[in-house]
């Protein structure tokens, strides 16, 4: 089992997404430490992309702010190296295929291992295209985390059988962002996942409240929250890490 498995050893996992460099890399580092110290089990670090087609307005804006601030893939790797001096929970990247491809997949994978990244999530790389990335990442001990969606249906088994790290279950149709209600029959999806893989699965997209997180974690192995955390960063900027600490405590308490 990869290091990602450790995120699921402390009860239900709480996975936090943060866009790197929003509003600046110092704040990202402080926010990651605040989340890790207050119960986050795994952090998804978003490497900003100019055209994040799977994101809703909140994370899109965070990408714009981060890129305007001058964040680059190299600076994000430096951030990870710095974080790894004391942050021990699993860290994965969430970014888009072109960010990895243009950096050079081999070079990207090597730097992941060197700086301490455990996995990579690429929302625009479905099962059919993973051969471009998975074998190279795996050679450097980095997992490619797969996603299943409410529309996956007959594809769930195939995806689950080759899943690595954890399986990311997309809660509902559409892009990332806060939703008032999640109607997908996630229980049925999780059941197929369980029949086909032993690795853990967590639900993300649209979760923001402790109640929603508890519900999602109850039917899976964890809950993933992105937009709600990014909103705190948008609203409080450099002061956000304290608020994130409080928010993470609340969510972790609700899902435990």
């Amino acid at each position: 089992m990869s290091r990602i498995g450790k995120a699921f050893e402390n009860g239900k996992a709480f996975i936090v997404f943060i866009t790197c460099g929003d509003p600046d890399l110092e704040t990202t580092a402080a926010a990651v430490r605040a989340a890790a110290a207050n119960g986050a089990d795994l952090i998804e670090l978003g490497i900003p992309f100019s055209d994040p087609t799977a994101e809703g307005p909140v994370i899109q804006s965070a990408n714009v702010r981060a890129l305007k601030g001058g964040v680059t893939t190299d600076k994000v790797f430096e951030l990870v190296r710095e974080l790894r001096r004391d942050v021990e929970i699993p860290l994965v990247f969430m970014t888009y295929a072109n960010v990895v491809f243009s950096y050079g997949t081999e070079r990207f994978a090597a730097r992941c291992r060197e700086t301490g990244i455990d996995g990579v999530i690429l929302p625009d790389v479905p099962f059919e295209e993973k051969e471009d990335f998975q074998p190279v990442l795996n050679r450097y001990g980095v997992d490619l985390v797969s996603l299943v969606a409410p529309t996956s249906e007959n594809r769930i088994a195939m995806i689950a059988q080759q899943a690595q790290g954890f399986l990311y279950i997309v809660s509902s149709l559409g892009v990332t962002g806060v939703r008032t209600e999640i109607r997908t029959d996630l229980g049925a999806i999780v059941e197929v996942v369980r029949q086909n893989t032993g690795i853990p699965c967590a639900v993300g997209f649209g979760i923001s409240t402790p109640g929603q997180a508890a519900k999602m974690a109850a039917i899976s192995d964890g809950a993933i929250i992105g937009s709600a955390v990014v909103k705190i960063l948008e609203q409080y900027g450099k002061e956000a890490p304290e608020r994130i600490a409080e928010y993470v405590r609340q969510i972790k308490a609700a899902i435990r």
Partner: protein
Amino acid sequence: MTNANGRFGIHGGQYIPETLMNAVIELEGAYLHYKEDPEFNRELSELFNEYAGRPSRLYFAKKMTEDLGGAKIYLKREDLNHTGAHKINNVLGQALLAKKMGKTRLIAETGAGQHGVATATAAALMGMECVVFMGEEDTIRQALNVYRMRLLGAEVIPVKTGTATLKDAVSEAMREWTSRIEDTHYCLGSVMGPHPFPTIVRDFQAVISKEIKVQILEKEGRLPDAVLACVGGGSNAIGSFYHFIDEPGVRLIGCEAAGRGVDTFETAATIATGRLGIFHGMKSYFCQDEYGQIAPVYSISAGLDYPGIGPEHAWLHDTGRAEYVPVTDDEAVNAFEYLARTEGIIPAIESAHALAHAMKIAPQMGREKILVITVSGRGDKDCAAIARYRGEDIHE
């Protein structure tokens, strides 16, 4: 021309969110079925001929030929199609396919507005709901087309994200499709995006080269020496090239929008300035920075203002079968005015890029040579912008 995984050489593929995978698989299945279905093909031919006004003319531009003093110039008049551009070919095909698939709603992106107008038109004709995403910048540049789409019953949503142009409209249409798949078909407007779109759009646009071949054989008794078309995503170009790809004697020349020049940052010439990448569902060439961030491209032409190129073009470039040349704003505007004065035809500023290159090469060629240039659309929509370019402010 496509292999099993929807690849053209190394290009193409399906780099899209898992949420959309079953939708594109279903689309491919339906397309493979209906493209062999005689009833579907009969209905589509009828729409092409009775509604869109096909076949479009292959017009011998006598004055232009004499004036340039070289190769004989023929214009493939896609500007004469209903709605004024080649876009209708693809849209009628996709709308009919969507209808057969039981979809009741079409969504589309648009740059210059021609694809949006064509989609709104087909939706009106077939009684479908229609939503068009258009960069806010383009809704200003192409205000007349926004009005046309609304008149046709479509909802136009201005996209404010990113550079507020075509690429952002594509991203937003993809996001919308992710959130509503059941009743909705994404009517993609060019030979780009994830498989099977580059193949479907090409097949529906291939009617252009199919007709050119018949028409030129009728008029000249032989194939042309070169076929020229403008390239943004590349749908009118691939349509113009397709039936000549296996005719090595015919040069295929795609004309990219160089904007203010390929040595500036204000360009949209992907082959000239881009490199291999993965974006909008496909592997192809893209204008991007060293970290893979997609470049904010520029061209006077809203329809060519796109940072990528369709995967089949990328492959035709790799193999050397087609040539891709950059044409600047200035050259295109000159050609726009030239064709109006010389032949009494006002071309779309997009098509003017191909005409501009023809004006460069025709005089170097012998009088026995034949050039075919696709006039992909008409230029009424561009008059205000070109007037502005020349320092004149007119109210539409």
